């Protein structure tokens, strides 16, 4: 069982120092990610959802060692190597860069306007020294471009000549050209129109299955996550509040926050009688999080225990975990 896990995070925390605070005593910190335990299975399409400020991007970056890990551990384990991200040395880190990749949100900002598409896609190969000749590089570029439905003509052009969907396909090709095992896609379809979004999602899914990749798919859009991911984790204010196989989560959400997120999605039916479980207020500032359960300030079911004691993730045999004091009584 252990061998099926590609990324294993234990008590993972990322704190950023704040300016200010006294000369003596503790410096104030923002706990962007706090005490997260997470297993991402090999070959899975793992979804991470939450509102802005929930820490999902920071968690994704910590898994790539692109954010400073303050406490805890992240173990990466593919069939060839095992790395502990917090203690790996420089050469291991260089190797890990080849095995993991990031796809960004905004395909307009992520591509250099002064490079041709061929050079953009080839750059990771050249920087990492993965190919020995120009011919080999071109071969690799053509191969991945074809997978991402870009033709030879496209490779000679500059990014400005492409639409949003095509640019995102270029970003994907660039991320995948080094044949990574683990890819973090951070809001990769958020900037795209719905008609194009479906196309890019289908492409990601296809490539993932074909190349046997493991994806960490970060998104604020639950309906997108529901369609592509096989496992979902919900974050709130730096904590995991619920994680479950996708169908299980959407069929029977347990945490009041997950339920509220689901009911806040505007329905396509103008006469939908769904009584939305509206959330009052907004996500609190991570510089000054509430005590106890982080969701208690907005939770309609909060009681005294929620204001004092922070709930832990409770495991269950179905793989459905939830961090809420009252989830059981709320299910009735």
């Amino acid at each position, binding site marked *: 069982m252990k061998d099926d896990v590609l990324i294993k995070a234990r008590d993972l925390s990322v704190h950023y120092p704040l300016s200010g605070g006294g000369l003596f005593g503790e410096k104030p910190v923002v706990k962007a990610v706090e005490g997260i335990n997470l297993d991402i299975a090999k070959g899975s399409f793992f979804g991470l959802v939450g*509102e802005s400020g929930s820490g999902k991007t920071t968690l994704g970056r910590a898994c790539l060692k692109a954010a400073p890990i303050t406490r805890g551990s992240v173990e990466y384990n593919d069939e060839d190597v095992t790395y502990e991200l917090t203690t790996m040395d420089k050469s291991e880190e260089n190797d890990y860069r080849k095995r993991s990749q990031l796809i960004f949100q905004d395909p307009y900002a992520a591509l250099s306007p002064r490079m041709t598409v061929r050079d953009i896609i080839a750059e990771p190969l050249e920087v990492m020294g993965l190919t020995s000749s120009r011919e080999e590089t071109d071969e690799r570029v053509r191969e991945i471009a074809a997978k991402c439905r870009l033709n030879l003509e496209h490779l000679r052009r500059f990014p400005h000549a492409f639409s949003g969907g095509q640019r995102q396909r270029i970003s994907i090709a660039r991320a995948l050209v080094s044949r990574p095992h683990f890819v973090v896609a951070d809001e990769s379809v958020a900037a795209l129109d719905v008609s194009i979004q479906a196309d890019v999602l289908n492409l990601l899914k296809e490539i993932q299955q074909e190349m046997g990749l493991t994806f960490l798919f970060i998104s604020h859009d*639950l309906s997108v996550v*529901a369609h592509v991911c096989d496992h979902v984790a919900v974050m709130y204010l730096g904590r995991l509040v619920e994680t479950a196989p996708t169908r299980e989560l959407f069929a029977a959400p347990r945490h009041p926050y997950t339920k509220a997120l689901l009911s806040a*999605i*505007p329905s396509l039916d103008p006469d*939908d009688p769904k009584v939305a479980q509206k959330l009052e207020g907004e996500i609190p500032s991570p510089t000054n999080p509430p005590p106890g359960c982080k969701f208690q300030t907005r939770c309609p079911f909060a009681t005294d225990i929620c204001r004092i004691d922070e709930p832990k993730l409770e495991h269950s045999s179905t793989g459905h975990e939830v961090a809420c004091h009252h989830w059981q009584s709320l299910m009735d």
Partner: protein
Amino acid sequence: MTRLLDVENLTLQFDTDEGRITAVDDVSFTLEAGEVMGLVGESGSGKSVTAKSIMKLNASNAHYGEKTNVKLHLEDGPVDIMALRGSKELKVVRGGAISLIFQEPMASFAPAITIGDQMVEQLMIHTDMNAKQSKELSIEMLDRVGISDAGTRFKQYAFELSGGMRQRAMIAMALSTKPKLLIADEPTTALDVTIQAQVIDLMKDLVKDFGMGIIFITHDLGVIAQTADKVAVMYLGRLIEQGPVRDVIRNPSHPYTKGLIAALPSLDDLDTPLTPIPGDIPSPLERPMGCVFNTRCSANLGEICTAKIPQFSSVTQGHNVACHLYNGEGAK
């Protein structure tokens, strides 16, 4: 119902370095007082410039077509908006009888002036209230849109407010002049779903209370379904389908509208794969001949679609579609 706005044959072209491009092509629609019209389309479809035309807010390189006729019906009679010249005459449609809410509330408030001063300033310009009355009304409006401790918020700057709060303040500011028409350009797109749900509820309440007409621009059909009375769908500068919200969403007729709805990830059905609309929206420099959608249309009838611009024909009462499948020679 009383007619509030007539837009007839709106055509808008922009001079650019690459030539003159057509952003809006022969668009006509009407709006009654107290009616909410959703204007839907992908990026580049011309929905924002259409709305801005009503306030003549487009840049100086904009050219309106000769037949363009935009009339706003006020108590003192109709105003011919295209005939207005200079900021003094345009005052009536810019902030007077028409208010505009932008997508990004951070970018639309001046950063160095308090929220309160900005609200008071526009009231002093557009109404005959004095400073004291303006301040009282502004605080009352902030309170009305659900901002707690409105007196304190009045004295704060935009950066001190959270995203949802800023959008509420924007709405309060837009409504304080009691406009007859409110144009909301993607007002919830930058917000998290839980905050979006709050803002949609707020806008619904305000329509009831103030009875103004609203043009709600969005790419999100779910938001339209929950807010609008009628819908107009745009593609590449042309209106291709319009009608009552229930008719258009339950019985979409234009292949593009059908495609848009099919591309939406639905939470009710996780098994059906997502169906993208093939291809990308063409560049406005390369507008297709005939029907603008013919390059991506799965129901393309061949010659007639590439040669002739389809006229509107009626599907049901008030529900019109511009597609050769439904009129004249192309109809089966």
